């Protein structure tokens, strides 16, 4: 039964490719009423032989796109702006809750659970790629498709 479920989910997984980069399962969270900011997570894999760097992007539903690190130090949450996120050859980076993420500031409208929202990512070498974020629940701690990449490795 579990296998059937994961295969079913895999069919819907949103993965994107540009150059030798693979962007897997971008997702965001529904936002509370009046929230100023939303967040984005994803996994990025560099299948190439040269380093690349995520340097920016955009979304249709917000004014600004930012890259952030996030750390918990002694129970204190600290968020800092990043100029870019490096992805070495062969490396897979995970943007996930409690860690580095993309942030959308100046929301034009709230994000609602189970909708899909469009955006772009800009890489230093690979260029610009269009992606879509799956919007999860307001308290979601993982995207729905995290499991399928293990299932999908060929």
């Amino acid at each position, binding site marked *: 039964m579990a296998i059937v479920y994961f295969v079913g989910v895999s069919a819907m997984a949103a993965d994107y490719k540009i150059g030798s980069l693979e962007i897997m399962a971008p997702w965001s969270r529904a936002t509370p009423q009046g929230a100023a900011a939303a967040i984005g997570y994803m996994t990025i894999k560099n299948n190439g032989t040269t380093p690349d760097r995520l340097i920016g992007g955009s979304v249709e539903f917000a004014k600004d796109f930012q890259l952030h690190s996030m750390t918990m130090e002694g129970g*204190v949450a600290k*968020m*800092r702006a990043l100029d870019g996120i490096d992805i070495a050859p062969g490396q897979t980076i995970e943007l996930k809750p409690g860690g580095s993420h993309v942030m959308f500031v100046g929301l034009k409208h709230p994000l609602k659970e189970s909708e899909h929202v469009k955006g772009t990512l800009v890489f230093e070498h690979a260029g610009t790629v269009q992606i879509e974020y799956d919007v999860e*629940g307001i308290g979601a701690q993982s995207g729905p498709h995290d499991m399928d990449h293990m299932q999908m490795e060929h």
Partner: protein
Amino acid sequence: MAVLIVAGIMFTQFGHSTVPAPASIGGPFQLIDQDGHAVTDRTFAGKPSVIFFGYTSCPDICPTTLADLTNWLKALGPTANKLNVLFITIDPQRDTPAHLREYLSSFDPRIRGLTGTNEQIAAVAKEYRVYYKRIEEEDGNYTMDHSGAVYLMDRAGHFVAPLSSQTPDGVAIERLRSLAAS
């Protein structure tokens, strides 16, 4: 005992030169609620309290912790009516009463938002040993460093234990249930 150790670690890492006893968390405050009314610690006296410090422009641990609280309160059902559940902003400049009310409408209605003047927020944060700091960003925006813990306080206003997003749901619900019964 485990609680004492956890709290001790938190304070050591906040950089205090002395480690206060958990009993010293909490104290009197004067704030403004989400309906614009002046409130004090005495407004909430007589019920145990669940207190979370955060801010609404926070995209990660604040909404997810409020969502966790919403799930935990739902699991408790009417028992949760025996608790004050307070979200105190550490970003009063952006988090006005009206904005808090709008934002919290997405969560359990028993979660009440509190804001205040910069001085009032600084005072309540000090009473609760909550660290926060405004971090400027180059585009004119700012983010806030802040303690992520949820504080459980008994009806006399004494600190009982912390909760966080890392607390398993079952543990959190049982701690809240026993707090409500205390």
